[in-house]
């Protein structure tokens, strides 16, 4: 079963592990500054009223990212539905 999806496909209340970040260098850099690199665990929390951006929980912080960026971030979906903070 293929669990490798892009971050924008991560269902709400589910977690994933970042495998690859294919954004432009500046964005990659900014995301890394927040602690998001391959290997980090990320959890989808909520979507804005117009469906984009989505807020994610990682490293005990909540950060909103646009789909434009999240579709370039690849993750491995973790099969678990219980709410646990990454």
């Amino acid at each position, binding site marked *: 079963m293929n669990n490798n999806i892009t971050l924008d496909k991560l269902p709400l209340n589910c977690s994933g592990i970042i495998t690859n970040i294919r954004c432009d260098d500046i964005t990659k850099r900014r995301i890394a*500054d927040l602690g998001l690199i391959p290997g980090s665990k990320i959890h989808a929390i909520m979507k*804005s*009223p117009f469906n984009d951006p989505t807020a994610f929980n990682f490293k005990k912080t909540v950060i*909103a990212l646009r789909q434009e960026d999240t579709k370039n971030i690849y993750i491995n979906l973790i099969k678990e539905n219980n709410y646990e903070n990454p």
Partner: protein
Amino acid sequence: MKIHNSILFHSTISSNNKQKNNYTVAIAGNPNVGKSTIFNALTGARQHTGNWTGKTVSNATGTFFYNNNKFVLVDIPGTYSLTSNSDEEQIAKNYLESNKADVTIIVLDATTLERNLYLVFQILEITSNVILCVNLLDEAEKKGIKININKLSESLGIPVVSTIAKKKKTLKKLVSTINDVCTKKIIITPFKSDFRNTETVKIENYIFKAETLCKDVCSFNKLNYDSFNRKVDKVLTSKKFGIPIMLLFLCLIFWLTIVGANYPSQLLSNFFDFLGTYLQNFLNYISIPNWIKDLLMNGIYKTLTWVIAVMLPPMAIFFPLFTLLEDLGYLPRISFNLDKCFHKACSSGKQAITMCMGFGCNAVGVCGCRIINSPREKLLAILTNSFIPCNGRFPFLISVATLFVGCYFSGIGSSFVSCLFVVLIVLLGIFLTLFISKVLSKTILKGTNSSFILELPSYRKPQLVQILTRSFLDRTIFILGRAISVAAPAGIVIWLFANIYIGDLSILTYTANFLNPFAQIMGLDGYILTAFILGLPANEIVFPLILMSYASKGYLVDSTDILNLKELLVSNGWTFITALNVMIFTLLHFPCATTLLTIKKETKSKKWTFFAFLLPTVCGITICIFTNLIWNLIF
């Protein structure tokens, strides 16, 4: 990777600590961790604080004394890192590298310690004299997070103190540690990281190092530590309620302002009338030429007191309410809710935050645009900021709405309808912000979206007393002071305009007559347009100037009595459509002089400043002509 666990920092005792010395202390840290709160608590200054990322946009300085030593504190803008190239990171990096500071305090958010540590490692590569200040311990405790301060200090080889910035007494340890480090009582030898690799690998190393260290010193006891935040966010950003709640907040703030300001305004105006008669008697007593008396009383005094009576009450209500939302942490949620709209307009979602700041003061809003990283999106936000009516324009909008819209209803319905009308005008402003951003993005400011990264901080319990004093003293009095300093000379100018005659007509009438044909096309009249032009230094004085021009003798009519005002306006030809066009033009005209100067400073370009002047003016003129045309076709 090695984390040394050997000796702490060495302590030596210096002998000459009675001498008076000057030391410089820098405060660095992630955004929104309480740097400015600590700065304010130590120096007694009143830097702007609030629960969102990017309030401090330039270095602020203040001083405090301890043990006969003078400490100059420098509040550096908050950054996540020192390697990206945004403005605030450059400011922070330049300052730290300049080595001006004897010691650097890095403030950390105890609830997000791990993320905060990346910056610590980066700063430690620039300077050794670093004190860590783990702040927001109370919030961490609530979330079941425990941090072993001693272990953190041992692992890094630098002094670490814990604080709750809101409570001043918890800062004592911080102050004595600053003193000890500056006076070389404590000599810090941190364990330097030995990464000499490329940038990307470096940040990954920092992240791993922080993770390991965090596991070592932190313990988490609650799994669902932020369930409260999630629950509130589920409502405030939900599909069903997110946008309606935002509009409701907007309506509520305006309604409270309208209803609450009415009575104190009347009271102030009565008081100034009362004081005015005494002043008049006094002036009569010390026999001075009549024209000077007239200039003083009918020119300066009337304009001044009118501005105070009309401005002060709404501001004293609006600002605390707005600060309350800001302190709670609602602003980033607005940005989160509206980002899609701004995305479609090819601009940054953070523009929603600068837009909100524009409600307070457009100059502040323009300054706040520094939180937007992409230069193109920043420029969009700056150029469109004045589409949001600032506090100098609210009283005018509210008065006109009350006089010409609310009058058709009675009782509480009247204030409610006036409020709805003001909200409609504001929504027009927001719509135009988006529309113009889109048009500019497709024409002269072409470009694609840059990435949008927005932190949604935990909600914080607002400090009510501080909100009241801060918003009243800092914002209200500051803006009122500015208005007053402009109102006095403007009072003189309008008096001279009205009292110097060329032939049969005063200069004011000449100007008004000259502008009148054009103003009529816009559904206004020459006097209104003259007032807007003379009101360039501050929007607050536009309405007083209009009233003053109308009053037969050339000075301001008596009192803020609502009914009298309406009579005066109606007798000068005001109808509903005049009121509507005046409100539209109030929303859409050139920014005030302060805002223009700020735009010039921020864009460093005369061209863009001029464009920022032209853009809303052209919009305003076009829309006024359009509504006037439609109205005349129908009626």
